[in-house]
């Protein structure tokens, strides 16, 4: 467990800001105690200070995971969000897409969101904006990047992609081994 370098902190926060914007503040200044980001084996974890203190007593090999894993740094030092971050992205998301029940399964298999499968979309979603995908009954299913702005979506064909899949909860089954 080590503190993120400035450079890495920046890349993490930039990525998070794409999805939750200014709500990042809420992640750091929490009323229920101090929370922090830590890096462990190139993965970024988010946890409360109390858990961190206890986790520090384990050495590097023994510790597998503490708190919530947000994502990992690739070999090229880019930060990539994991689906495990969804727990924190979903409540703070600024832009959302709701899927029709028929399209849920497709999305959970890792496919992009098509216009035909989209039930609702937040007004004024710009292009290439991080969005969190929900089912119609507000169950978070994953996240991605919008391929079209809201206005464009209205005129797109049914098979046009409106959102690129960057992570979906189907990954819990598909690649359980690479989550950590």
């Amino acid at each position: 467990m080590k503190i993120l370098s400035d450079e890495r902190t920046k890349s993490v926060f930039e990525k998070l800001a794409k999805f939750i914007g200014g709500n990042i503040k809420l992640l750091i200044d929490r009323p229920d105690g101090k929370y922090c980001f830590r890096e462990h084996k190139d993965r970024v974890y988010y946890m409360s200070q109390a858990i961190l203190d206890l986790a520090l007593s384990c050495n590097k090999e023994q510790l597998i995971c503490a708190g919530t894993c947000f994502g990992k740094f690739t070999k090229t030092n880019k930060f990539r969000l994991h689906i495990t971050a969804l727990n924190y992205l979903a409540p703070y998301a600024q832009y959302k897409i709701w899927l029709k029940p028929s399209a849920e399964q497709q999305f959970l298999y890792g496919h992009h969101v098509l216009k035909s499968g989209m039930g609702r979309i937040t007004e004024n979603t710009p292009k290439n904006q991080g969005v969190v995908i929900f089912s119609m009954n507000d169950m978070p299913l994953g996240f991605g990047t919008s391929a079209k702005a809201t206005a464009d979506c209205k005129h797109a064909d049914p098979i046009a992609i409106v959102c690129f899949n960057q992570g979906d909860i189907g990954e819990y089954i598909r690649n359980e081994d690479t989550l950590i």
Partner: protein
Amino acid sequence: MGRKAKFGEEKQKKGPGRKAKKQGDPSFPKHLKENVEKKLKSSRQRKRARIATQKLEAKALLKEMKKAAIIEEKKIKSAGKENEGIIKKQVPRKKAPVPVLKEPEDSEGEGTTEYSDSDEELQQSKAKKLTKTAKKSQASKKNLFDEDQSEEDDDNDEYEDNDLDIPDDDSESEELGDEEIEDEEGDEGSDMGEEEDEVEGDEGSDVGEEEDEDSNAEDSGDEEEDGDSDGAQDDDYGDSDDSDMLPIEKANKKLKKKMEKEKADAAAEELEMNVTTHDVFQFPEGEEVEKMEGLQDVQQRMKDVIMVLSDFKRLREPNRSRKEYLELLLKDLCLYYSYNEFLMEKLMEIFPLSELMEFLEASEVTRPVTLRANSLKTRRRDLAQALISRGVNLDPIGKWTKVGLVVFNSQVPLGATPEYLAGHYILQGASSLLPVMALAPQENERILDMCSAPGGKASHIAAIMKNTGVLFANDANKDRIKAVVGNFHRLGIVNSVITNVDGRKYSTIMKGFDRILLDAPCTGTGVLSKDPSVKTNKDQADIDKCVNLQRELILSAIDCLSSADKSKSGGYLVYSTCSILPEENECVVDFALKHRDVRLVPTGLDFGVDGFANFRQHRLHPSLKLSKRFYPHTQNMDGFFVAKLQKLSNKIPQSRKERRIEEAMENPEGSDKEDSEESQEDEKPVPKKSGNKRKMEEITKVIKGDKSQKKPKLDSDQQLPKGQKRHVQNVAKNRRNLFKMVKNRRNLFKVAKNRRNLFKILKNRKNLFRVAKNRKNLFKVAKNRRKL
């Protein structure tokens, strides 16, 4: 759905669109049909008999008419003669049993009634066979009459044979007596109701039967006599028979009777065989055991052996021991359920036989799929609704849990629904809920799950803690720990630290947990339905390995636990396994009780079976009854064991052996003394010997400890004040000498120490007084004894 019974008798129409070939009605084996056939036969014969009787009646009428016409005066006389004839008939029959008459052509319709009698008799004899233990007779040939004797004799033979089959004198005579009376009755019935139907005749015989039961064994004549009298009677009846019958008819009759007799014999034999298999189980010989039979035979044999064992005194074969039966049963069970003998032996030790069968049967059936609603993300009701809308048929598990659901059937894969992926539930056995419920985690505690993979129970703990406090989930297996990570993130657990440490060394990393769940690795004998390979691939070495690991783990877990005096609400350890072997459960907990300062507390689970406090040769701690066992056949969940321990302090109690060794090392003379004292005590016949002796041992230990410490301490006690003064003087004199000061200080510390020792000594003295008191008491007791 199989073939349907023909409820409506409507016949299906033939024609186009119908199956050309239809499966015929089920056919019954021959021996089952027998009764029906007999009835048929008898009815046909009855018909014939009726016709014959009508003819006879007509003849008799003609005769009577003639007689009436010719001699009116002799009418009365002839009637008297008839009566006499009846009496004559009856008299010889009372002396000896008489063969049943079978001829329908017999005069005055007697034959018909008689025949129905004989039918009944056949059945009766069968029934008697059924009830009686069949034993081979010294089939006496003397009763087999020559062929030229009449059919009646054959009939008689049959009965005699039957009778002779039973060597019991009482029963024989009884039966003979019975027959005699029956015959009489039958005759009487027929005599009385000469013109009556056969039905009434039957009734008469029924009455006879009833009387049979009451009637005790009358002395029947010897069988030889029977034969003689039969012969005599044959002559009586023979005339009338021959007169009406053609030779070919006679031959036919003979043949029929023979066949009937053979059939009856065969049936009787068959019944005998059935009797042997049902009532008395014959122990198979060496080759028979080895011989591979169908599984049905094995099952039958198992049932038989279990029956024998259930009433061993009565049903056993005298030269076979219980052990032999048990060994046979063991082999059969192993064959039938495909276990290895070792495991089956273990199971037979745990369960009584009837329960064992239930357990084995239950272990063949898979448990229903159950799931736990994740209270962090959803409620059970909402989850149930969502799943029902997806075509899953489910119900709450029971009243004892608020998060469990049992799935009856499902149209979608339960491990891949969006609800599952969103972490609204986890697939988890019903038994996995139990240890967590026993642990009863509280919010804001520090809890450890020592062997957590795949994280079902650990996530349950986190859900109960509502993501507060800290949950450590540990597993020694690096591959399996990935499942824990996946499940935790999916279920939205954020208060966890997941570690990959050997549980035996966990105390080197962290201590002071409020609660620990130790779901120890085990042989898995409780989840045979999940993993049937356990049935065959476990032996003593595997169990020993598991037990060793479990012992180390439980001690390590207790070491990691904060004791009850330090932790406000905690200090609890829940030990659970999915095994049902006491070696892995009660014995391990007992080991922990001996080696750490812990006690068992109730688990808080209000169902399940109490743990064993005694098991075969093991005498375990009595409080082990507080632990709980769960079996597949009683609760329909996997076999499971749960025990809850509370840590009282960090002390590590020494075993008595270790203490002795240490004492011996400390003062070898003392131990000798103790021995001599003990031997003295042994000589005294103290009433509560064992209890007193143990007390005395403890006391003597205290004394010994005192003595070893006392002498030097007392010396120092006297010297100390002086030394102190001297040192003070020295300090005053050599203030500049720092080294000396340091020394003095050290001495001062020593003084303080000695003072502490003094207090100890005082305490010990008190103890000594107590010891003295106890001794006095002992002497009193001894005195009392002597008086007595």
